């Protein structure tokens, strides 16, 4: 296997397949839902017999990724044709091309409301859940130096006003991810500094939230760590994407190679208990990392608590930030 790995694994696409929880009355975040499956099991109208009859219903002159929730299309977008460097904004459009749209065929739609989220990154997506829409932005007035999640009323009612309608956030929370993930009432994001801890917040903005303007603190956080797949690796990048299924949050990580080695791009998957129970302790809760697979043969040996050198501080306190390093890295043939 080692020979196989070294000889030419230039890319690896892993699908966690056995028992994914499938969501889908909407396309509420990147990948359709928290499982990132790209599958909408609730769609029943368009099928292989009529897909060829689709016709353009409406357009909007914005450029950026979209999601759909609550009958609304949310985009993190710039006006089409904007110059490079134009800051995107969160824009909401009627998904059925009626409200805010012309009667022409195809209709041309204008936003139902917009939010000029500071620090919003081009290419990032929104997430929809609990009647709220979540985007990843920059600093706030109270904390201008760190990235934050900004959460808005998806209906464009609370904290919204003016013509055209503009919205301010319902609440904010520290952390950033270009593809926010909400599952089982929890908003997952990543710390923008240090080891890029996973941060879990009450997605409804209730528990651990307060102040005016409202700010939320994490329910728990955890530091992802890799298990080395081979002695040839030179470290591990744990800043990959997140997915959630069956009560567990999964992060993808990439094993790096030494500069003089053949290109090697291997994935690992690191998982946490979404509820912040298993592997957590104390207040605030701190997760031990839970490596479930990557090199499956080693998963049991390196499951949480079994990997030396990294773990809780034993007092329920926050783990110190260390650069993510694979266990056993640095050895060479």
């Amino acid at each position, binding site marked *: 296997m080692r020979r196989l790995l070294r000889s030419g694994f230039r890319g*690896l696409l892993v699908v966690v397949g056995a028992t994914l929880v499938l969501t889908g009355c909407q*396309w509420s975040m990147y990948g359709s839902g928290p499982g990132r499956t790209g599958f909408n099991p609730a769609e029943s109208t368009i099928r*292989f017999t009529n897909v060829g009859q689709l016709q353009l219903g409406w357009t909007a002159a914005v*450029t950026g990724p979209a999601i*759909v929730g609550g009958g609304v299309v949310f985009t993190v977008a710039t006006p089409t044709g904007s110059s490079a460097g134009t800051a995107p904004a969160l824009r909401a459009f009627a*998904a059925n091309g009626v409200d805010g749209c012309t009667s022409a065929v195809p209709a041309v739609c204008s936003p139902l409301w917009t939010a000029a989220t500071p620090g919003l990154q081009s290419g990032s997506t929104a997430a929809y859940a609990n009647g709220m829409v979540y985007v990843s932005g920059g600093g706030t007035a109270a904390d201008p130096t760190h990235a934050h999640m900004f959460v808005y009323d998806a209906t464009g009612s609370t904290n919204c006003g003016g013509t055209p309608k503009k919205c301010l956030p319902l609440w904010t929370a520290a952390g950033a991810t270009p593809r926010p993930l909400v599952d089982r009432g929890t908003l997952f994001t990543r710390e923008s500094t240090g080891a890029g801890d996973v941060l879990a917040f009450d997605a409804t903005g209730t528990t651990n939230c307060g102040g005016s303007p409202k700010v939320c603190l994490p329910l728990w956080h955890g530091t992802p760590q890799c298990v080395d797949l081979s002695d040839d690796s030179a470290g591990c990048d744990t800043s990959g994407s997140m997915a959630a299924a069956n009560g567990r949050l999964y992060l993808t990580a990439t094993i790096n190679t030494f500069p003089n080695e053949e290109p090697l791009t291997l994935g690992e998957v690191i998982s946490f208990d979404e509820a912040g129970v298993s592997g957590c302790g104390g207040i605030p809760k701190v997760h031990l990392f839970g490596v479930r*697979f990557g090199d*499956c043969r080693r998963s049991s040996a390196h499951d949480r608590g079994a990997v030396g050198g990294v773990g809780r501080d034993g007092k329920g306190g926050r783990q110190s930030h260390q650069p993510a390093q694979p266990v056993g890295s640095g050895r060479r043939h």
Partner: protein
Amino acid sequence: MDDSLTSQLSLWGAVVGIDGTPVWSQRLPGTTVGKAAVTSTWGYFPTDEGVFALPLANEPLCTRFSCQPLWHATSGASVLSVANGVVYDDRGRAYSADGTFQCGGLPKVCTPLAQIGPTTPNIAGTETEVVNGWVYRSLPTGLEAYHLPF
């Protein structure tokens, strides 16, 4: 696995059980891989050399290091979506998810059931969203929404 084969390996798709149990892995043609779409039974893998439909479970023809596609399409793609028996790529192509329509040959090759909007790729990394009878594409020229005739 002999060296002559391993030396050719480049791009792999793999299915791993949620408990970490490996199901299968299979070399995929191409040099870049995109975002797969997954139903409860099938995974659809995009590479720059095509779209590949593979089972998630251990079918008779799938082993730890090999699994033959049910079908494949020869047009490269970057991001796939799937809904109600239709696979959508990021260039507006739609395929029969179960390889029943517009498919033939051995190994089975599928051609698009439809072209939805322009062949221009979606904005990099964006999906084709399929919700409530609408298909949404994020194109460089703007957001476009498609539906069936009323």
